[in-house]
């Protein structure tokens, strides 16, 4: 089942913050976040496995809610290099299939 991402697109000025949400109607086993720049391959950002988990590096972090049905990606003090399309990929219990959402296009402008 495909996860639902919101918003579909967002425009930020450098230094502003953004939140991208990923939700499922069923409890998930894991959530994977990727960023894809135009014409390039998706690049892995992080994986969340546990309910209530939060992790991050530099100024990009993510959380997985207690019910394991929603994850949010937080981009703090955005930089021009953060521009791209962000995808969440989800795995259900007992499934190896990684299903991606439709993506959130993030544009950071000077």
């Amino acid at each position, binding site marked *: 089942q495909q996860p639902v991402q919101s918003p579909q697109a967002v425009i930020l000025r450098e230094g502003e913050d953004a939140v991208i949400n990923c939700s499922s109607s069923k409890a998930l086993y894991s959530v*994977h976040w990727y960023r894809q720049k135009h014409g390039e*391959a998706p690049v892995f950002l992080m994986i969340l496995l546990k309910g209530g988990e939060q992790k991050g590096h530099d100024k990009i972090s993510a959380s997985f809610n207690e019910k394991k049905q929603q994850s949010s990606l937080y981009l703090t003090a955005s930089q021009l290099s953060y521009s791209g399309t962000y995808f969440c990929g989800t795995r259900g219990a007992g499934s190896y299939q990684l299903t*991606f959402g439709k993506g959130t296009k993030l544009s950071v402008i000077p």
Partner: protein
Amino acid sequence: EAGVAQSPRYKIIEKRQSVAFWCNPISGHATLYWYQQILGQGPKLLIQFQNNGVVDDSQLPKDRFSAERLKGVDSTLKIQPAKLEDSAVYLCASSPASGHNTEAFFGQGTRLTVV
């Protein structure tokens, strides 16, 4: 460490023709995935291999798509015959294992245009 290699990068064919894509995963990676990414959408899994065996091909249109991974290393994805709606980027990815907490490394993809 070399990344996932795919070829060709671009391909234009007429509908009803055949086409094949090649993928060389990262050395030692047991799991290989083929994804189809239509413009403006997220990648859709077509088939997943664990070594040279198929783990999941539930979304592969088997009447026209086929894939193989001989010797558990390189893989080829074939479309025969192609339809206009097959126009997309075909991404190959690999990971060390197929567990829930493994990262998938993607190649740059093959952009297919069917005219």
